[in-house]
């Protein structure tokens, strides 16, 4: 079943999660410049709510109405870390195939391994650059191709 079908004329929809205001602005801009539709969330809980996985929401088969093609999240966030968010997404039958990218300002190998083992598509070091997002975009297109 192909929830994330997107022809080459459609822009992929990315959910960007980061508690830092400046970083949110930056990632949004970089993604938009790479022809992505962007929704931002300031923490894991909001992200889950948007994805239809919130605590009070019914986990219906028709989840992901928002048709998110990729999730990019910061690792260090208050409340729920990016890793915990990743786990929740991977536990969901509807969303487990949505690629999740983790960002962090800290280059900690054990952290990176942990995320990749849990199914993260990629781990990116902050601050993000245009070339990072371009690379991501290419990978995303290959995912769907």
């Amino acid at each position, binding site marked *: 079943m192909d929830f994330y079908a997107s022809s080459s004329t459609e822009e992929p929809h990315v959910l960007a999660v980061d508690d830092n205001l*400046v970083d949110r602005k930056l990632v949004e801009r970089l993604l938009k410049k790479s022809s992505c539709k962007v929704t931002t969330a300031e923490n894991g809980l909001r992200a889950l709510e948007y994805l239809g996985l919130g605590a009070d929401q019914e986990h219906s088969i028709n989840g992901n109405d928002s048709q998110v093609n990729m999730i990019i999240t910061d690792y260090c966030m208050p409340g729920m870390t990016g890793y915990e968010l990743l786990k929740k997404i991977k536990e969901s039958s509807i969303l487990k195939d949505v690629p999740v990218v983790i960002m962090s300002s800290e280059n900690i190998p054990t952290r990176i391994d942990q995320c990749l083992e849990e199914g993260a598509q990629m781990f990116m070091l902050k*601050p993000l650059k*245009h070339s990072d997002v371009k690379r991501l975009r290419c990978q995303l297109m290959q995912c769907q191709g």
Partner: protein
Amino acid sequence: MEIIGKLQKQFIDFIKALYHEGFLDDQFLQLKLQDESSPDFVFEVVTLFFEDSEKIINNLAATLQQQVVDFKQVDSHVHQFKGSSSSVGAQRVTNACIAFRNFCEQKNLEGCVQCLQHVKHEYFLVKNKLETLLRLEQQILAAGGTIPVLS
């Protein structure tokens, strides 16, 4: 046309000095690259950075003044500041934050208080520089010129 040339040279010299003195690093260049298609981007991000930073500085001052200082809370604020300064390329602020985090880890109150002063100092310095830079850009545009692109 002469005035545009003068302003452009001023701009280039000023921004080169900022890199040379370590106020700004490559990340700022990354932001400027985004500016090409939407010239207000740097202005927007930098403005957000200023607002966010001043909030963080106030929070830090308040947290450090408490009877029992919560160093985890202090560290959390510094982490935010380190992140946003790094994302705009404000290198000296980022470095000051790194030193600050070390004192948080050690639960060294005096060290933290001194670091806050240092971070504030570096922040207001770079704020001043960035405001000057943005003003120069406005002057160039007002005179009918284009802002030089750096590589």
